[in-house]
């Protein structure tokens, strides 16, 4: 048994040893496929590593470290600082941080009667920027030199520790102190803040005490004068740029947990802080990025394996002949199986090993180009256990595919022959359906989608080709036989009669065209997705909002007039953005109310899936009158005078300044005759927008105690409140006001606004639209007020808004909301359009300068550029483009193999035709038209496959090119220009190739048609 098995192995080796071109092609195909798999594994690791590095960069500087901290007073602890220091450094080393920096901080404490902050840092020079003086020397009791970081307070003078100020400095970074020090503690962070914020900060918090830093920790920590002071010790190991690497996160997280346990086992005063959650999140995010690349790589691998299968078709005849010979010689089934498995296995193994080497080299190149450590990347990807297992699986899969290709025999289900490939294709189709039904983009199945879909399609076309060709033959049969028509009919007949290699070639073309189109379509979809995403986030060329750290109102820093004066081609839209809820819908909170000029809707980048109507039509649908009926105050008006009579209530004017801010001006009590109040400066030339009516104080107290409303009436004699109304319990008729006041509802007199007559029309997203009543009226809770709008159109989504939203005319919405409560709504965002790139560039420069630099400016072009430069997006798009090109190249090779295969396999049929009198020209035409038919069939089926695959992948893998969630969702996009050009180039190249391959196929110089046997 063993000897006969060895004999078969020897036979297999001898057969392989003779080496044929087809074997070489198969090996190359598998090698390239394996290289794609292996290379993509390395590339995925690099991409994930880059993604993690980017995520680490996004972690605030103050948190970007592993930090052991201890809080307390030495007297309450058994351990002194040196012991704590040793323990903390040991724990940090366990967490992987070999180098750490110690510090001590007495934060805002009274030291020898002076309120101050005092700290000591190891290697202070690295962490501060000197502004004056010099760096301090090592701290000694007799002279402990310090730097002043902030404040004007006195330097404390504790007994036994002589502090000496030697200069002023600012912290160079927040890494060391993290959140021990607030931003405002650092002189460097004394940036411009809104006066409102500055005032608020000043009100709530006194000026911070001075802060001094000394060189070294031990002396301050052990100073007897400070022994009873509460202090913080910290040992900080910064996460340097590029660390931790992707593969170090798990170890770091584990080490941090262990180290924390170790520290807290001794005392709960210790803690260990590291941005583990952020890193875990980055790791998870990077996995999605990696999966995307794996998807692309999987596609390339499928393509190359398909090419290997095509080439393997040429091995089939030879291997079957060998099996037949051995069967006649009495070879047992297992011997035949051993021969097949050995040959295919060795071919697959050779291809896989070659591919492994190529992939290793490619992975090293990619890692090197990406600036990642080559050795680590390879060790953690290709050479890891999983990587090697993957290579093994590739070899096994390649063997299985080769065996199925060269040795599988059809089974019979009833009268229909079914091959293992058919069964595998059915299984693949079922898997795709399962995947679609499940809709789970985290499933590993998604990564196999290109392979599954194209495989099922390829087998389907192989099965359908013959009947389709029969139908085609029937169509070409009609009418008279011209030269081309006859050639076409003969070609179709010949294919229908003996599809042979053409079936394999067509299937391969389905795979290659399908994957090429998929790759290009997916690339175009991702590119469009990036553009759509940028246009969705920044609906015009720029969006200007408040900077949250400064809270300077947008219109304060960038009045519309000033912006519009920046030059021609600049178009500024005031935007109202508020959040709220829906009155009658449970749980529907957090909706966005967006107001914008209706005319600007048509200027947005609009997609048909946003709404069924055109943006222009939608803009027209929300147009509404926006007058608020307010009374303009003259430029010279310095005083507001109101004459009233009747009951006493507190009466206050509500004013709007020219800058859009709202003010309240207390006029006093009604019923006392003339009420006067001096207009604040900023209210001059503004507008009177209403009067507030409140109970007089005593009444309010009494009313509140009694829990009863207060009613009464008074009269406003001047100004004449024509077309004004009372709201919230007030009634106004010809200047006579009757009222009922409570603490719950604001009672006001205000001008009538258009929305009093007709609700403001809005666009609403589906869930909000569904909440409207039959008349389309939708009550909203916005800015604490209840307003009602009318849903004019339903939209799926709107640029600039995530989630459920209503969108209306900014003027009308401002009127509506401010009529309910002055100051409830104001423009706090601007969308700026630029006529062209030049204007946009100029505008971008302007917006970086004062006074706009205190605002948050987001540029659509900058977002697009950022997307283009993102390494993952760039890598993904590049990989897809390369995949498409490779697929087209292999499709060309497939056509060439088809023609050569036809010339070889169809000799008998061509001989018959020649015997009938067909001239060489006709024979060439037949072969060429066969190739054309195969190409067209492959193109059509490939196009369908590619588009279907693109749609499925786009639907399931709803990630942008940067592997982030897509907003708006990705939509299949076909760049017809590129597809058309590629098709044209392919057609020309394929035509040239076919013509070249057939030009000398039937030489006119007297060569015989066919003489195989001599009889």
């Amino acid at each position, binding site marked *: 048994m063993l000897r006969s098995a060895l004999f078969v192995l020897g036979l297999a080796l001898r057969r392989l040893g003779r080496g044929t071109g087809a074997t070489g092609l198969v090996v190359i195909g598998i090698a390239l496929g394996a290289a794609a798999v292996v290379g993509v594994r390395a590339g995925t690791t690099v991409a994930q590593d880059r993604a993690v590095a980017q995520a680490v960069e996004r972690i605030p500087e103050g948190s970007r470290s592993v930090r052991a901290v201890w809080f307390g007073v030495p007297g309450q602890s058994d351990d002194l600082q040196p012991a704590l220091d040793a323990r903390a450094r040991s724990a940090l080393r366990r967490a992987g941080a070999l180098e750490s920096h110690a510090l001590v901080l007495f934060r805002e404490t009274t030291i020898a009667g002076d309120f101050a902050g005092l700290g000591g840092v190891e290697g202070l020079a690295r962490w501060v920027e000197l502004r004056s003086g010099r760096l301090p020397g090592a701290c000694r009791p007799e002279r402990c030199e310090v730097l002043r970081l902030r404040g004007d307070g006195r330097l404390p003078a504790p007994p036994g520790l002589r502090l000496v100020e030697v200069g002023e400095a600012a912290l160079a970074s927040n890494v060391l102190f993290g959140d021990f020090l607030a931003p405002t503690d650092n002189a460097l962070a004394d940036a411009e803040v809104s006066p409102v914020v500055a005032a608020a900060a000043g009100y709530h918090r006194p000026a911070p005490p001075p802060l001094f830093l000394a060189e070294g920790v031990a002396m301050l920590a052990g100073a007897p004068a400070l022994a009873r002071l509460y202090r913080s010790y910290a040992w900080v190991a910064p996460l340097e740029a590029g660390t931790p690497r992707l593969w170090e996160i798990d170890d770091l997280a584990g080490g941090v947990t262990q180290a924390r346990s170790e520290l807290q086992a001794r005392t709960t005063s210790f803690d260990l802080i590291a941005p583990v959650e952020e890193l875990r999140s980055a790791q998870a995010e990077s996995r999605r990025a990696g999966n995307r690349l794996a998807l692309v790589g999987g596609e390339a691998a499928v393509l190359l394996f398909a090419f290997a299968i095509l080439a393997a078709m040429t091995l089939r005849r030879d291997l079957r002949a060998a099996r037949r010979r051995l069967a006649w*010689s009495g070879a047992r089934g297992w*011997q035949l199986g051993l021969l097949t498995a050995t040959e295919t296995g060795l071919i697959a193994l050779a291809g896989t090993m070659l591919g492994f080497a190529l992939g290793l080299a490619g992975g090293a190149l990619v890692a090197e180009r990406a600036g990642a450590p080559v050795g680590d990347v390879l060790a953690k990807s290709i050479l890891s256990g999983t990587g090697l297992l993957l290579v093994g699986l590739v070899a096994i899969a390649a063997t299985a595919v080769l065996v199925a290709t060269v040795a599988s025999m059809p089974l019979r289900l009833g009268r229909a022959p079914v091959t293992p490939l058919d069964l595998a294709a059915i299984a693949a189709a079922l898997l795709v359906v399962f995947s679609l039904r499940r809709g789970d983009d985290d499933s590993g199945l998604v990564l196999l989608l290109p392979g599954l879909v194209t495989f099922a399609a390829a087998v389907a076309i192989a099965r359908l080709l013959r009947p389709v060709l029969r139908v085609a033959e029937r169509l070409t049969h009609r009418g008279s036989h011209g030269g081309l028509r006859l050639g076409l009919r003969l070609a179709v007949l010949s294919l229908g009669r003996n599809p042979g290699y053409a079936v394999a070639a067509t299937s391969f073309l389905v795979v290659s065209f399908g994957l090429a189109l998929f790759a290009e379509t997916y690339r175009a979809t991702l590119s469009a997705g990036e553009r759509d995403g940028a246009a969705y986030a920044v609906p015009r060329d720029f969006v200007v909002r408040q900077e949250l750290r400064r809270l300077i109102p947008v219109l304060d820093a960038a009045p519309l007039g000033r912006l519009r004066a920046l030059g021609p081609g600049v178009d500024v839209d005031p935007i109202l953005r508020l959040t709220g809820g829906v009155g009658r819908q449970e749980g529907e909170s957090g909706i966005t109310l967006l107001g914008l000029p209706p005319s600007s809707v048509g200027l947005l980048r609009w997609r048909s899936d946003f709404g069924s109507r055109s943006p222009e039509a939608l803009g027209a649908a929300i147009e509404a009158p926006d007058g608020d009926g307010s009374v303009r105050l003259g430029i010279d008006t310095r005083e507001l005078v109101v004459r009233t009579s009747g009951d006493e209530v507190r009466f206050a004017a509500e004013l709007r300044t020219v800058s859009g801010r709202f003010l309240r001006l207390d006029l006093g009590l009604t019923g006392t005759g003339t009420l006067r109040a001096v207009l604040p400066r900023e209210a001059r030339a503004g507008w009177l927008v209403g009067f507030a009516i409140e109970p007089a104080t005593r009444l309010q107290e009494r009313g509140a105690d009694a829990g009863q409303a207060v009613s009464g009436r008074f009269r406003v004699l001047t100004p004449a409140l024509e077309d004004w109304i009372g709201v919230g319990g007030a009634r106004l008729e010809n200047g006579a006001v009757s009222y009922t006041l409570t603490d719950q509802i604001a009672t006001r007199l205000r001008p009538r606004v258009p929305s009093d007559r007709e609700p403001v029309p809005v666009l609403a997203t589906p869930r909000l639209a569904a909440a409207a009543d039959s008349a389309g009226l939708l009550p909203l809770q916005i800015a604490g007020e209840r307003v009602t709008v009318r849903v004019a159109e339903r939209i799926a989504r709107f640029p600039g808004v995530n989630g459920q939203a209503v969108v209306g005319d900014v003027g009308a919405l401002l009127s509506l909301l401010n009529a309910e409560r002055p100051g409830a709504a104001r423009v706090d965002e601007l969308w700026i359009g630029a006529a062209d790139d030049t204007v946009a560039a100029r505008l971008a420069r302007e917006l970086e300068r004062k006074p706009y630099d205190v605002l948050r400016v987001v540029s659509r072009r900058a977002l697009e550029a950022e997307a283009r430069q993102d390494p993952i997006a760039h890598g993904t798009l590049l990989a897809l483009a390369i995949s498409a090109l490779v697929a087209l190249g292999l499709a060309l090779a497939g056509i060439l193999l088809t023609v050569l295969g036809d010339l070889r396999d169809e000799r008998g049929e061509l*001989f018959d035709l020649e015997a009938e009198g067909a001239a060489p020209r006709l024979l060439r035409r037949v072969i060429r038209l066969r190739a054309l038919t195969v190409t067209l069939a492959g193109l059509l089926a490939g196009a369908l496959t590619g588009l279907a695959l693109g749609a499925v992948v786009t639907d399931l893998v709803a990630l942008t090119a940067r592997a982030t969630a897509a907003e708006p969702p990705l939509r299949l996009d076909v760049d017809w220009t590129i597809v058309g050009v590629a098709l044209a180039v392919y057609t020309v190249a394929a035509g040239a190739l076919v013509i070249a391959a057939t030009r000398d196929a039937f030489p006119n110089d007297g060569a015989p048609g066919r003489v195989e046997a*001599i009889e």
Partner: protein
Amino acid sequence: MTALVDVRDVFRVHPSAEGGVAALQGLTLSVREGEVCVVLGPSGSGKSTLVRIVAGFDRPSAGSVRVAGLDIASLSAGGAARYRSELLGYADQHYWRALAGELTARQLIGVQLGLAGASAASRDERAAELLERVGLGDRANSRPRELSGGEQQRVALCAALAHRPRLLVADEPTGELDSATARDILGLVAELVREHGTTALVVSHDPATVEVADRVVHVRDGRVSDERILGAGADDAVVVGRGGWLRLPEELLRQAGISGRATVSLDVDRLVVAAPASEEACVVTTQASADPRSEAVLAPLSVETTRALLEARDLTRRFDELTPIDRFSASFVGGRLYAVTGPSGSGKTTLLHLLAGLDLPDAGEVTLDGVSSTSHDRAGRAELRRTRLAFIGQTAGLVPFLGARENVELSLAVRGVELEDARHRAAEALASVGLAEQGERPVAELSAGQRERAAIARAVAARPRAIVADEPTARLDGANALVVGLLFAELARTTGAVVVCATHDPLLIEQADEVVSLG
């Protein structure tokens, strides 16, 4: 001696669109141990099916097959492989296909032993012994491509006998050899099997194979038509099938003057078969629905029927070491049917290809209707064929899923005939071969005889000056072969075209006006 091979009442029906084609129809055959049994029969007579069944690759639909007491039909796949490994040796007609190109002669001979687990030394020893025996001792390390055809077949024989099988099955062992080499190989087969005490079942359509036989069995239509034991004291025997079915040797029928009908009478204990009194009135009836001549609507050619329409002058065609056509000259006159005969390898097909302009001679000239085809280029020769010649190959070359009419029309389209004219001519030609009723049926659904007639109709419709046909009756049963022979003869006489057929078939040869023997 006991029977090593015992085949009884074997039927083998292959499924087809029509419901089944019977390759064997009650074949009974017995081969004694040590005997050399030659099974003769034309192509399509069931020989290959018999070989596959005896080798355990195929199972009979009915009947029993026993070899050395083993019921072959009931063997499992593993059992059949073991049987082939231990009892059977096989030599194929296509020796080049049977020999793996990557192995040397020595290795090839050792394959079956190696599969059985023999050591390398014993394999080499056995190979050396056999190679020495067949005179190839010095070619042990040669690969097949380095050997001549005869040498390759010798190696193949050695490989088949290396494991000392009890039964050697040889399928057309001389099919692709020249006649001299074929005689050598046949002699070698007989010597080797007798030396080894091996029983041999040699399948062939070459009558020369009979020279080495102990027993000759003629097979036709899947049945044994004639069985004789040769040698001293052996009686000629004719097999009586179940139900009294009797197939008389064609040679005897000819000698007795029986062609269509016969009278059968009992003379005491002897059955007397004689020609009927009015034999002249006898009409040949065949499986075809009617005598095709009765439907013939053949357009006569306006040619002088005594003129040579096809001429070969001093034709020579060489293939490497072989020269199957060597200074061959012949004139083929219009209105006559020519049978080109000769043993396998004598160059029949090569000559036909040369005559049809499908191959070019190394020397000499072919003229068709007075035009030298050899002076034309490939396109010119194609033009000549389109307008003046029809070629019918061994395989009809019909599109199986098209009807006969469409096949004929397609051929005419290739010849540049307008569609309307083609329709008319196709109908006429199909009627002339008795397929008027079958024109719309896909060719795949036609019987073998009908397919051959469709191919002839395709040739007829072209109204050629010459028809060149290669083994047109190879896959036909006797009745259909006779019909085709008659049809060609009628065609030649009616249209004035010359018809040249390469054939082994005596039924076709019988109809020929002239026989051209090669080899």
